[in-house]
């Protein structure tokens, strides 16, 4: 993997009045942003050709910092906005930045239907297990029993496995890693970009200031360490006993397959109509 220098990253950032960023110290969003930009730099995508779309939430603040065509849309709707952009300008590389609440609670409908259509876009989902921007309410990925400002007695809601959800809905590239595994994240994001179809990269992240504090998970380094120990490669994870699997998650590429992509299918339809016209 070629090394992308820090200086190269700067080329992709907006140097207007957007810094310092809004994220808390110890937040993983910056790591994901770095991995995303390095993946883009590696692939040599033109900035003009990238549309980065987000919803609402901590992670969704990302587009304002990068020098692409950027759209900070409505809560949960990023994939729907991105769908409109992609259909009208199929030549653009469309990237969706979203979070666990944004994509799987309020945006769950758009998420599953984007995956079902297999429309060509990459969804980078930063999963911090909490609603950070509003101060720490439980999300569809807050683990059972955990504290949030709206589960003062512990969470009784079962959780979503976001990757399983995407696979079930028909996504054709599904991967999970963590902010600790930044190089792996970069590699997964790069592969997702190169994939034709709906690709999802879930990146488990640390929110030490809100989730971590409410659940006594320690500071940012402690949470990073926990991600290292508890999110294991698929093979390692599968070898564990059921007892050992408790509290652990697997990371890796779960699905990477080819299925007809929406824009290509639409183009095919248009071509068949033109042929029909030509014959008349």
């Amino acid at each position, binding site marked *: 993997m070629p090394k992308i220098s820090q200086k190269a990253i700067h080329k992709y950032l907006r140097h207007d009045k957007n810094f310092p960023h809004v994220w808390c110290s110890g937040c993983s969003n910056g790591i994901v942003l770095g991995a995303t930009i390095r993946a883009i730099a590696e692939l040599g995508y033109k900035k003009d050709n990238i549309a980065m779309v987000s919803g609402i939430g901590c992670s969704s603040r990302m587009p304002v910092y990068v020098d*692409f*065509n*950027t*759209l900070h849309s409505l809560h949960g709707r990023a994939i729907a906005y991105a*769908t*409109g*952009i992609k259909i*009208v300008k199929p030549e653009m590389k469309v990237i969706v930045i979203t979070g666990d609440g944004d994509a799987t609670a309020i945006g769950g409908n758009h998420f599953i*239907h984007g995956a079902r259509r297999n429309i060509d876009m990459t969804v980078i989902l930063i999963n911090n297990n909490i609603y950070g921007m509003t101060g720490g309410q439980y999300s569809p990925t807050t683990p059972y029993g955990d504290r949030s400002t709206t589960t003062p007695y512990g969470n009784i809601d079962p959780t979503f496995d976001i990757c399983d959800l995407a696979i079930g809905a028909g996504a054709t590239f599904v991967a999970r890693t963590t902010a600790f595994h930044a190089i792996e994240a970069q590699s997964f994001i790069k592969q997702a970009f190169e994939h034709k179809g709906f690709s999802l990269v879930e990146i488990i992240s640390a929110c030490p200031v809100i989730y971590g504090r409410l659940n006594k998970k320690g500071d940012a380094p402690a949470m990073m360490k926990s991600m290292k120990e508890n999110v294991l490669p698929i093979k390692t994870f599968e070898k564990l006993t059921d007892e050992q699997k408790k509290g652990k998650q697997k990371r890796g590429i779960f699905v990477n397959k080819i299925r007809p992509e929406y824009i290509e299918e639409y183009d095919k*339809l248009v071509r068949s109509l033109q042929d029909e016209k030509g014959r008349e």
Partner: protein
Amino acid sequence: MSKKNTIKKREPVLMQGNEAIARGALDAGVNFYAGYPITPSTEIAEIFSYELPRRGGKFIQMEDEIASISAIIGGSLAGAKTMTATSGPGFSLMQEGIGFAKMTETPCVVVNVMRGGPSTGLPTKPSQSDIMQARWGNHGDAPAIVLYPNSVMESYELSIRAVNLAEKYRTCVVLLSDEVLGHMRETVNLPDLSKIKIINRIKPTIPPEWYKHFPENPKYPMPMASFGEGYRFHVTGLSHDEKGFPTNKAKEISLMMERFRKKIEYYIKDIVQIESFFMEDAKIAIFAAGITARAAKEAVMKARKRGIKVGLLRPLTIWPFPDAAVKKYLGDKKAIIVPELNEGQLSLELKRVMGGIWNYEIRKTKNIVELHKNSGELITPEEIFRTIREVK
């Protein structure tokens, strides 16, 4: 393949109101449509799904109305002329997207073929009860341009106008219709394409580093960049500065809000359209829009035959409300009859405008006579005629 929706143009054709809306939008250059099925607007989506792939345009049926409005805003930012169509319940769902389009000054057109409400209400019956929703539906103070035709031909014309106004003023324009107007068929003579005035988006020519997506003092129409063309601007629903970046500075927020307000205030003459029918010597006036105005016209004719001096003032632009025309034409009338298929939405606005005049200027005018119906039936010419006789 059947050609049910391919119309032989420039000859008189029998056309449905919904079809006329789709036809007008296509002629105005709409090349991306995203929608979700709902009675009584579905024909519009069906026609687009047939026509757009044949014309190099794009059609998609989204998973709900929220996704539909989101997709057309995204598509508009990518450079397309966009439309979606829905009815009351779907229109309610679209409100957040409509607010976003107004906030981010992204052109798009939303058609609302009104049906009886509230809630699921009367899917197959007409209503005019979304007049206020079309104005105030989104949260926050935002400009509203809302048009409402009263015939199939006018559905075609105002559909073109809605697209033009959206492109010119960079906002979400709402085109109202209703179940009867949408489903009835009339003979129409579509004008030659060369005779239709189409407003296209102007592309910026300045270097990208000078480009401001939200300039302080815009002149409409103004250059607007699209995604993927070298300008790399930022769009957010947050209060933003001239470049589109979020801001908390009171001065910048005021400028933004002022721009929204001026967009309507400064160009109101260009936006507002009204029809006055036998108003010159009228003692009694009827103020009605859309399908109800047709019944009102009939009633005016009937009354005139009996020597009653009555006229009709009909707004084609519902919002911004035609304050000036209302004052000019209705200020000296003995009575104003306001028939509408709701519980008094137009009349409420009329009272706002007329209240001032009547209280302080012309005290001789008696009253506003409201004629409401919200049971899914139309107001008949006879009912309006009876009211005319009562107030005479």
